[in-house]
């Protein structure tokens, strides 16, 4: 027997400022390294992406596209932080490095492998490229990247000295298949979703909000299952729908530990918790 407890809506943690999704085949990431920024977005330093991992190339592009989507002039992001949550970044470079080391020894190790292919690399690249002085960090690196990145953001967005955060999620649509030299034999899509958020304030009544419901207030829908690549697509789709007032007005992402991150359009914010609870009650009854 289930006891259903409906908690009041948790206070929004932050509001959406802009977002973008970018998907690029691996074969086209080389050209993207030197591509000019989209109109309305700042230019990158020359050859800035030369040594970067593919996830960084596509992640930085998503940030630029999200800035370009903002009404001009875009606000200053000087005091913004960056959280990047990739899934399996750096594997191609790691495979190629290890294959070369096996033949030639330590002299074959690029000094860029650690700074450019570690978990922090995407966040650092965004911070450096766009002059952001808030905290920059990577999270996860594995299958739970969306949960870990979003959950970290819900509290870090209110860090002292930080005006807001960029969140950058990246993944391969399908993992690269590598030969013994580490050379990819397929052409998977590299996908990035970039989201800018700032702390919620009373003046944000007309904004898309992010709020966190602790595990205690969440009624379990079903046993947790591993997220799939499409989870990030669903997240980006939900952001777009909520921002545009589309077919859905709210969306919830359930973390493996039971907490939920809820996104709500301005019109849905007041009703989101009630509707959510009703849905759970129906599921439980069924």
């Amino acid at each position: 027997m289930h006891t259903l407890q409906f908690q009041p809506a948790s206070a929004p943690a932050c509001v959406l400022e802009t977002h973008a999704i970018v998907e690029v085949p691996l074969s086209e990431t080389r050209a993207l390294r030197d591509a000019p920024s989209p109109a309305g977005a700042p230019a990158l330093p020359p050859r800035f992406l030369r040594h970067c991992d593919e996830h960084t190339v596509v992640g930085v592009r998503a940030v630029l596209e999200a800035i370009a989507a903002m009404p001009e002039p875009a606000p200053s992001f000087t005091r913004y932080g960056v959280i990047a949550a990739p899934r399996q970044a750096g594997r191609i470079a790691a495979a190629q490095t290890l294959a070369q080391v096996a033949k030639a020894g330590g002299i074959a190790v690029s000094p860029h492998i650690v700074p450019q292919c570690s978990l922090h690399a995407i966040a650092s690249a965004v911070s450096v490229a766009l002059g952001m002085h808030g905290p920059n960090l990577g999270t996860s690196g594995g299958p739970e990247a969306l949960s870990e990145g979003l959950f970290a953001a819900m509290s870090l967005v209110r860090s002292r000295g930080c005006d807001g955060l960029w969140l950058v999620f990246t993944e391969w649509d399908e993992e690269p298949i590598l030969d013994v030299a580490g050379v990819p034999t397929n052409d998977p899509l590299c996908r990035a979703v970039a989201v800018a958020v700032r702390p919620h304030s009373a003046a944000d009544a007309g904004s898309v909000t992010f709020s966190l419901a602790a595990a205690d207030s969440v009624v379990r829908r079903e046993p947790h299952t591993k997220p799939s690549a499409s989870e990030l697509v669903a997240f980006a789709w939900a952001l777009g729908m909520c921002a545009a007032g589309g077919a859905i007005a709210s969306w919830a992402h359930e973390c493996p530990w039971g907490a939920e991150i809820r996104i709500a359009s301005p019109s849905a914010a007041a009703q989101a918790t009630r509707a959510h609870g009703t849905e759970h009650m129906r599921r439980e009854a069924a």
Partner: protein
Amino acid sequence: MASSRTPDTAAVITGLGIVSPLGNSFVDVADNLLAGRSGVCEIAAAAGAREGRQFAAPVTSIPHPTAPGCDDFAHLGRLEQLCLAPAATAFADAAVAGTVRPQRIGVVLGIGAEQLKAWELDFLAGGTRVFEPRRDETLVHAIARRLGIAGPAVAVAAACASSGYAMALGRTWLDAGQVDACLVGGCDILSPTAIAAFYNLRALSRRSDDPHKASRPFDRDRDGFVMAEGGAFFMLERRAEAARRGAKVYGELAGVGMSSDAHHMVTPCSDPTEAARAIALALADAGVVPADVDYVNAHAAGTPVGDAAEAGAIRLAFGAAADAIPVSSTKSMSGHLVSGAAAFEAVACLAAMQREAVPPTVNLDAVDPACALDHVPHVARPHRVTIAASNSFGFGGANLCLVLRKAA
């Protein structure tokens, strides 16, 4: 942003676990740090290494933790052992199991290059994981599963500041009421590819004829850092709840400050402005002024640019008070634990508080004039430490300062 923290909600440390080149317990680490002992030694050179003689600060033995969920510890890979041992020790030390609901316990692991290290170690053992399209469980979720932690589990990476960012994030969860206890810390492992990469970057000391003298932060003749491995974990709880269940308290994580240089992906920033801002943010977060600080544990790894920039940041953040605050770099003894460094150096601060002595910077024979501070060369200095600040700076311009306060 104004803090809503009160004395009751302050984040206190109720559990501690360490695996390091200077020992695997608080007592051993404190003894070795205050005796000025070095953990740096010659290590077996990997096949294809750039130099015939290699040196580092390795962990020589990893203790088998007694916590439930660690029965198969001996069969785990070395990276998982290095992370699980201090995490399980801190978890057991805090004795939260049975007193705090598992859903209200979180874990944050600071680790900078988990996948790179895991792929490399597997490859060196003859495996092919790096070539395979796998999506394996990450270490933080394995630690949570083994220890029965059912709250949030997140891995964070900020290069050499990773474990400090883990501590910072865990504390924000306590502040926000998202957890009642949080296991925080980080760890790293020596690996041939990482040593080669840092060597090729010219970031490592090349003093292979005298490894014990190689790590010499702030010294005029410093020529790079010495790689190390290991790390530390802490259990954080709100003070009132820790007191309610009678937990022992090692100290308080009183303040955190974070910033980014936004300068370069690889080279350190010589402008101290943003590093000083991280220190100032941490002091403000702790509600203290520069003159309140009794000890600064410097990041200072022994690199020519980084040490001088940090000295400038300390001067900028502390102002005239810097003349009277003892500063040391325990990396002179422990080497650079990379992802685990910030957590290990927080342990050094707790040791200074408990023993009422500041650990020294060994090998500091001639202070670089660009690094002029109140240094503690060669031998520990008796000194009452109530508030300590610990700096950590990483690749990509990640700056972090932690402020720790002695347990009342």
